[in-house]
Structures are given as structure tokens and as C-alpha cells.
């Protein structure tokens, strides 16, 4: 009896979970659906969910008007470059903090995180001016460095948490077995930390991919990534919802596919330590 009630309750809860999940996903679904409508259907009231004339026209127009491939390439370079550079800097930092901590390690970690509390717009002017002085406005290199610096605290924190999970005795065993510092890091630590490094890379790649404040403010043409591509279809040119939706769908598609295939790593990355 108790079992029957609990399974009915479970059914109820999973229905609730599905509804909440669909509600959260709805804007994305709506964007994708709208991208297949004509402009007049896109703003029709009441809107039709699936019973409309499906068309690829928006995608054709968007393709004609903008160079999608260039935006995509810029996004890949900026998100990938900033993530890789960040990990290269963060791995030694996190190692030092996890395995050779000092009395100040916790303070340094908190201080790094505190930089995330500053609204980005607060430093827009200085950074904008620095970019002009250095002649790197609208360049990919500037965005790689800036996005790397913005995500660095998160990368260090995540890696630090992973490294803390690796038992120190295993590293000591490697030392006793005659491993040099280099061998210890290369053959023992890194292989053990790979799941952690992978989820850190993935999450930060996604964060950098979707970053819109700096990418919009510091680029114009040559370094503009997909965020700028979407923005170029927003209001100033009028209400072209269907084309805006098509552009948005094209912008999120790569990251959505990447995320889909790596959900396991991502979930592990976000819940690591919580359930162990």
C-alpha cells in the first residue's frame, strides 16, 4: 500500500519536474520555432505553436546578409583561446593552492572570487581606453585576454576543488617511487584530474561563448563573434523577429550540440564534491 502511494507521488513529482523543465526550455523552443515562421506569422496573435507554414526563408536571408562562418570562427577562437589560456594559468595556480597551501591561500581564493562581484560596466571605460591605447580594439587577442581574466577566478576555483579531492598520499607514493615533480604532475596528477579539467574547460567554454557584454562593446567587425551576429538582427532595423530567431538559433546551435554530447561531464563538473 505504502509502496503504491509513494510511486503515485513519484509520478506526480516527475510531472511537476517535466513542467518546470519545459517552462525553462520554452524560450529556446519558441525561438527555434519562430525561426521557421514568416515575419507576419512570427508576430501573429494568437501565435500558432506548430501549425504554420514552415519555411527556411529566414535562414536564407540571414546567410545572404551576414557571413555566419566568420562570426562562428571568431566565437571559436575567442571562447577556445580564453579557456585554454585560462586553464594553462589556472592549473599551476590551483596545484599550488591545493597541495602547498599557506596561511593566506583561502584569502587569496576569496579575493579572486571577489573580483567577480564588480559590475563589468564599472571597468568598461578604463578597459576600452587601454584597448585603444594598445591598438587592440576590435581584435580577437584583446577579447581572448579579457574573457580569460574574467573567467580565471572560476577556473582556479573549480580546479582547486578537483585537486583537493586527490589524496595527497598518492602524490607522496609517486615521490617515494622516484618520480620527479614533472613526472608526478604528468603521470599521476594530470590523469587523475582529467575529468575535472574536462568539465572546467567545457563550462568555461560555454561561459565565454555566451559572454555578450565585452564582446559587444569591444568589437565592431573583424573580431565580432556570434553574440554580435545576433545583436545585428535586433531592433534598430525594425521588428524582424523571425530573422532574429534564425540568427539566434544559428548562434546557439554549436554550443547546444557540444553541451548535449558532454552533459555527463557538465553535470559532474557542476555537482562535483556535492555528492561524493
Amino acid at each position, binding site marked *: 500500500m505504502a509502496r503504491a502511494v509513494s510511486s503515485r507521488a513519484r509520478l506526480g513529482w516527475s510531472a511537476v519536474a517535466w513542467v518546470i523543465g519545459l517552462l525553462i526550455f520554452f524560450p529556446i523552443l519558441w525561438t527555434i520555432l519562430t525561426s521557421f515562421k514568416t515575419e507576419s506569422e512570427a508576430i501573429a496573435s494568437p501565435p500558432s505553436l506548430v501549425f504554420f507554414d514552415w519555411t527556411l526563408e529566414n535562414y536564407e536571408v540571414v546567410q545572404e546578409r551576414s557571413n555566419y562562418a566568420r562570426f562562428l570562427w571568431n566565437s571559436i577562437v575567442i571562447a577556445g583561446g580564453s579557456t585554454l589560456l585560462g586553464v594553462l594559468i589556472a592549473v599551476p595556480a590551483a596545484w599550488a593552492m591545493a597541495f602547498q597551501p599557506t596561511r593566506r591561500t583561502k584569502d587569496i581564493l576569496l579575493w579572486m572570487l571577489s573580483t567577480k562581484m564588480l559590475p563589468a560596466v564599472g571597468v568598461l571605460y578604463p578597459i576600452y581606453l587601454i584597448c585603444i591605447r594598445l591598438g587592440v580594439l576590435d581584435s580577437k587577442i584583446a577579447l581572448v585576454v579579457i574573457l580569460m581574466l574574467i573567467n580565471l577566478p572560476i577556473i582556479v576555483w573549480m580546479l582547486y576543488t578537483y585537486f583537493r579531492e586527490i589524496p595527497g598520499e598518492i602524490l607522496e*607514493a609517486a615521490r617515494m617511487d622516484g618520480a620527479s615533480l614533472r613526472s608526478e604532475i604528468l603521470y599521476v596528477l594530470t590523469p587523475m584530474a582529467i575529468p575535472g579539467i574536462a568539465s572546467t574547460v567545457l563550462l568555461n567554454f560555454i561561459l565565454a561563448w555566451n559572454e555578450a557584454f565585452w564582446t559587444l562593446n569591444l568589437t565592431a567587425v573583424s573580431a565580432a563573434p556570434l553574440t554580435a551576429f545576433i545583436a545585428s538582427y535586433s531592433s534598430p532595423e525594425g521588428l524582424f523577429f523571425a530573422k532574429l530567431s534564425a540568427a539566434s538559433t544559428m548562434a546557439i546551435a554549436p554550443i547546444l550540440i557540444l553541451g548535449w554530447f558532454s552533459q555527463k561531464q557538465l553535470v559532474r563538473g557542476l555537482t562535483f564534491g556535492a555528492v561524493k
Partner: protein
Amino acid sequence: MGQITLNQITKSFGETQVIPPLDLRIEEGEFVVFVGPSGCGKSTLLRLIAGLEDVSSGHIEIDGRDVTDVPPAQRGLAMVFQSYALYPHMSVRKNIAFPLRMAGMDEAEQKKRVERAATVLNLTDYLDRRPGQLSGGQRQRVAIGRAIVREPAAFLFDEPLSNLDAALRHGMRMEIGELHQSLATTMIYVTHDQVEAMTMADKIVVLRAGVIEQVGSPLELYREPRNLFVAGFIGSPTMNLLTGPEAKKHDATTIGVRPEHIEAGDPDASPWSGTVGISEHLGSDTFLHVHGTGLAETITVRADGEVPLRHGDRVGLTPHPDRIHRFDAKGLRIA
């Protein structure tokens, strides 16, 4: 090879000195056990010898070479950890071969040595498994395998059996003992379990608060404990310690008698008598916990396995006169 000398070594963590100046000489081929209650500094001492901790002052010599500032990798020692500390991402074969690979040994020789170690340790069937697929005892054997392939100057064991269940612990104790017989390499073994110390050691070093209380063979420590701490620590069940008038009779502040050196008998014809509190029948032995008449302490007696005494029975106790240990007011043995 494998003679280790500790010369006036100390270790402090911040303000706290955990090892005051300490001297110790470990001879080649000896099986030395560091034993003491938790927090006595025995693991720290082992880690100082290993090089995993730096000494605060003093010198460590291995085979006459000063290794005080030599990193652990170059001291030629192998260590077996309490948690086994196997590399989880490597197969058993790769785990055992790791120190050889680090030494740059050629593959054929590596393979030969790994297989020889696996045969000795009954691991041949498990060479391609990962540590996660092994039982606790098997993991411990892999850890030992990883240590023996290097042919080190000495083996260091840090409470290697404390994660195993009682039956397995007994088996592994025998295996380590046999390994020592066949390799004849110096072994330093840390444990808080005095039974392990007594059964395995050539030489026991009893530590308390970083200080060596006594060094000697198991039987020396059993027969002539230098002070009350060693007397209470070595032997199971622990030695009965009596103070007051009974001790006065022997010109001592405290006297000690081991449970196996007290005879249970007729209550009216024995120097001590009392009533049985708890009797533990183990089959081979019976441990009687006797509340003595006129004695402050409960006395434990090791009696014959089939002695018919139970709770509430009156019993007489006779200590063997030549087995009474006497201690002075400072707790030191009176010869």
C-alpha cells in the same frame, strides 16, 4: 644494505615540537616496529626517514650517506601507505612497474621484475585489473609489490594493515613476516597495535609524545619494561598495576603483575582474594576481572580456558613472586 641512523633529529610544526631531539640506530636487515598510541609521533618519524617531511634539525644517514637534504625519490627507500595509495588510473601491472619506469629501466627487465613480484604476492591473475576492482587485501599486496620491485635499501610501512578486517590482518602479518625472512631487507613498520609489534618485530621502539620510551626486542620489553608506560602498553590484556599498601610491601610506589602471572585458587589460602566481576571465556583462556578485597584496582587474571568460575564467585589470587615488576615514584623500573 639498509642501515639507518637518526642523529639528534627534531621536528616542529610551527611552535609545536612533535619530536624532541631523538637518536636511533637501525641495523641492516632488522625488522623495527615503531609503536605507540595515536599522536605519539611514530608516523611523523617514519615520514622524516622517508623524506616526506623535512627535519627541523639533526641528521639522517642511510648506509653512511647523509640524506637529510636528499629528496624522497633519491633516498632509495620504498613505502607502503595505510590507504595503499595506488594509482587508480593504472592497471596493477603499471602500478607495480611505476617505480621501475621512473628509474628508466628497460621494458624487458621491468616485465621480468613485475612478474616475479606478482608470483611472490599471488597477483598474477590480477595484473590487468585496476585497483578499484580489487579487494582490500589484494590492494595491499599491490602496494607491497610496488615496493619490492625496486629492491630498496629499506621498506617503510605506515600502519599498512589497519584498513583490513581481523582475519585478513592476521594473514597479511604472516605474509609480511615471511617477506622479511626471504628478502632480509631492513623494514620499519609503524603501528599502534602492540600485538602487531610483538609478533613481527626484531626490535620494538616504543614512542610517547615524540620521545623514545624504550627500545628492545619484544621479549625484553615484555620481561623488563623500563617504565610504567611501556609496562602498560606492551602485553594483552594489559599488566595489572597496583599502588598503595600492596606496593609498599615490595618497597615500590607501584607494582605490576601481568594477568598470565597470577594464579587463581583457594580464596582462603592466597595472598589476595576477591569476587569475580566479569569472566570472559575464550575457550583457550579465561580472563577473570576480579574486584579484590582491600585492593583499589580491578585485577585481570588469565586463567585456564575451562576454569568454572563465574560472576560473583569468590576467588583467591597468587602472583608469581619473581614476576612482580616494581616502579618508583617517577614511574621508572626498580631493578
